[in-house]
């Protein structure tokens, strides 16, 4: 081909790098912005609630349940503690438990899923049958058994979340690894004679990061809901720690006379969950992560 023509050809068509600004693209969607704002708001509260709350969570100000007043914007609870202050701290424990538990679940789950898919053979069979066995037990039953075994401390709850959420992560990561491992750059690494550990860590794992982040966020929102449900059932966080699930449960008896006691923690909980889900949705789409574990969606 004549030189001038090849110059003409190589110049425009698609040689420019695409505008690689997924974050900017994500922020164009109002839902994503709302989601990120809600998550940021709740994280801020969780960290600073003890400092910015008007009262302490255990200080007793009245003799019983009172409606909102100028001093106590959301009134006081049955024991006379400031409801707003307790509400502001009500997500802390659930959030902490979810973050620790899901982090552990995602780390072990991703490692096991990667190993199962790439090594295959008996290791794959062993890991997958173990996951199947765990997933075969009804979730609530499994949690109840684990609570009876480990207790209701923060660390116990985190371990329980980790155990319950690992199998799902294993499955999703294994499926994605199978797709990535079928690509030719993995073949190229094998032909170079790279060690399997290096191939998994350097070639495959970076391609799983998007999926793993989405898994983490989605499962966090699911875990927070689940912990609240446990507290509601009396299997999770217990008095005197403030917790939204617990607060909803306590408000059940006065729901017809003083509905804000139920509505306030319910709004707090759902705004956090919705915030996470909106944010994940937008970010996952912008970063092109597909096939994320929608099964983890609560």
């Amino acid at each position: 081909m004549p030189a001038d023509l090849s110059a003409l050809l190589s110049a425009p068509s698609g040689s420019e790098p695409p505008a690689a600004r997924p974050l900017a693209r994500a922020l164009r969607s109002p839902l994503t912005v709302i989601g990120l704002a809600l998550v940021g708001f709740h994280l801020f509260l969780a960290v600073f609630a003890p400092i910015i709350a008007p009262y302490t969570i255990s200080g007793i100000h009245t003799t019983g349940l009172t409606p909102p007043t100028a001093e106590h914007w959301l009134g006081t609870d049955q024991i006379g503690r400031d409801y707003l202050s307790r509400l502001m701290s009500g997500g802390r424990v659930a959030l902490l438990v979810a973050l620790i538990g899901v982090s552990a679940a995602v780390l072990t789950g991703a490692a096991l899923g990667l190993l199962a898919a790439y090594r295959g053979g008996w290791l794959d069979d062993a890991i997958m049958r173990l996951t199947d066995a765990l997933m075969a037990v009804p979730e609530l039953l499994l949690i109840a058994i684990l609570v009876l075994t480990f207790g209701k401390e923060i660390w116990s709850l985190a371990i329980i979340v980790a155990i319950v959420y690992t199998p799902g992560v294993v499955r999703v990561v294994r499926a994605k690894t199978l797709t990535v491992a079928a690509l030719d750059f993995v073949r190229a690494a094998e032909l170079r004679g790279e060690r399997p550990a290096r191939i998994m860590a350097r070639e495959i794992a970076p391609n799983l990061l998007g999926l793993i982040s989405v898994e983490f966020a989605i499962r966090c929102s699911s875990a927070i809901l689940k912990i609240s449900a446990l507290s509601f059932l009396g299997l999770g966080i217990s008095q005197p720690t403030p917790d939204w699930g617990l607060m909803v449960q306590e408000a059940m008896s006065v729901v017809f006379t003083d509905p804000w006691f139920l509505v306030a923690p319910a709004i707090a909980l759902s705004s956090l969950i919705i915030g996470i889900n909106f944010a994940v949705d937008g970010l996952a789409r912008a970063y092109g992560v597909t096939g994320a574990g929608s099964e983890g969606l609560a």
Partner: protein
Amino acid sequence: MSHLRVENLSIAYRDDSGKEAFAVAEANLAVARGESLGIVGESGSGKSTLARSLLGYVRPGARISQGRIRLGERDVLGLSAAELRSFRGGRAAMVPQNPLSSLTPHLRVGDQLAELVRAHTPLRGEVARKRVHDLMERTGLPDPDALARRYPHELSGGQRQRAVIAAALIGTPELIVLDEPTTALDKTVEARVLALIEEIRADLGATLVYVSHDLNVIRRVCSRVIVMRNGRIVEAGRAETVLRAPQSSYARALVAAIPRIDVPAPPSAATGAPVVLRTSGLSFAYPAPRRLFAAPPKTAPALDAIDLEIRRGETLGVVGESGSGKSTLAALIAGALAGHRGRIQLGDRVVNGPAAQRTPDLRRRIQLVFQDPLSALNPTQTVAEILSRPLRLYHGIGLAEARDQAAALLAEMGMDAEMLARRPRQLSGGQQQRVGLARALAARPDLVICDEVTSALDVTIQAQVLDLFLRLQSEHGLTSIFISHDLAVIARVSHQIAVLEGGRLREIGPRDRILGAPQHPYTQKLILAATGKRSAEPVDIDAEVKQLSLTL
């Protein structure tokens, strides 16, 4: 009076940054009844968008910003949704590229066609069945009654495309739009499908719009052609004129880039050079799937007793169609497959088993370049990382030195050092494949195996990559096995040519002897298909049936 008329048509869509861009800009067309128009262009030229709009279709997110489309007296863009439904599949029909995705997998072929007959004609029951039978017969499908009971995945590629063409004929259309209908097919099958399309046009007197990236195909079926680039029609005229004397610079480049079988041979390597690779009796059979409670079925060998010899500085072109075993051959020599029988010898060393069992030095000496560059390059790594790894692994050099050498390799490939910081998705297809080649050369190998390395590229990009390959051959005395389904590509780069069919080596010899005086009938058929001359032999349905029974 033209039958199909497109006036000043523009189709706009929003790109990633939210700006309005034009997939098709100010297109004008006029096609007479019974004429066939080719639309040719490379990926992203807007050819498919234009073709689909002729049936009143634009993809979601795009809109027709101006212009008119008329078919006969009908204003296509003015049709209501209900009118469009009966228009498509009735007066106008579409034959898409991938026949497998346009047939419903869980319905028998005959049932799908019958459903379309009921939707577009008043025929019902046995009469509808009869119509299906006639159409299948008309499109050259063997034994229509038996084939009608099969599911789409039980048909061969050529048969599927015939079934889709049969579906397009149901409403006796005035306009048939074909979007790359033969791109997924082997060359010899393509030649037969093209003959069928030409026959049908003559029969029905239908107006044909044929979209393709392949000028050779356009030349065979179209009397007139338009060339598109970046949404604009850059040239229009009689197909022969445009192909022989293109006016616009882009059309000239496109025509110049068509691989032709009658190109001069690459400068030959020194005679008497030492043998780099020798295989003798090389055979391979894919292991039979494990079955519960049953003896494993016997599998046909994917490769059967292959004897090859490649000398230093020489390129051996391996040509064959899908299922010929050419990729298996590449995988065995490169070490991606375990369990061959026979002997592979590199220099004076016997190569045993897959890459994991070879010595590091043996692994370095044989390098493989993959077909799909996007799959072959890790999307999370930069070009620098991709190229540094083999440099450091094989030559034990430091990070900084590896980076310098990577830059030098890129320069060798005609790419800037600033590309080192890019990731594969930020490169064009041609650049990706150059990086793939550079990674192989980073090992300073004795033998480079190129497995269909230009098949995923547009024709002008393919020409550039082939130019690069020829330069590497002459400047560095590259020794390689170049695998392709395209005889014209093989003819451009090879000193020796091997013809594979069904796992057997049909013919091997010096390039000019194979191209000029082919001995084996299969080689002769390949050459006929590549030169576009219609073979005198009747449509070979037996072969297709045989191929099918093999795949079943």
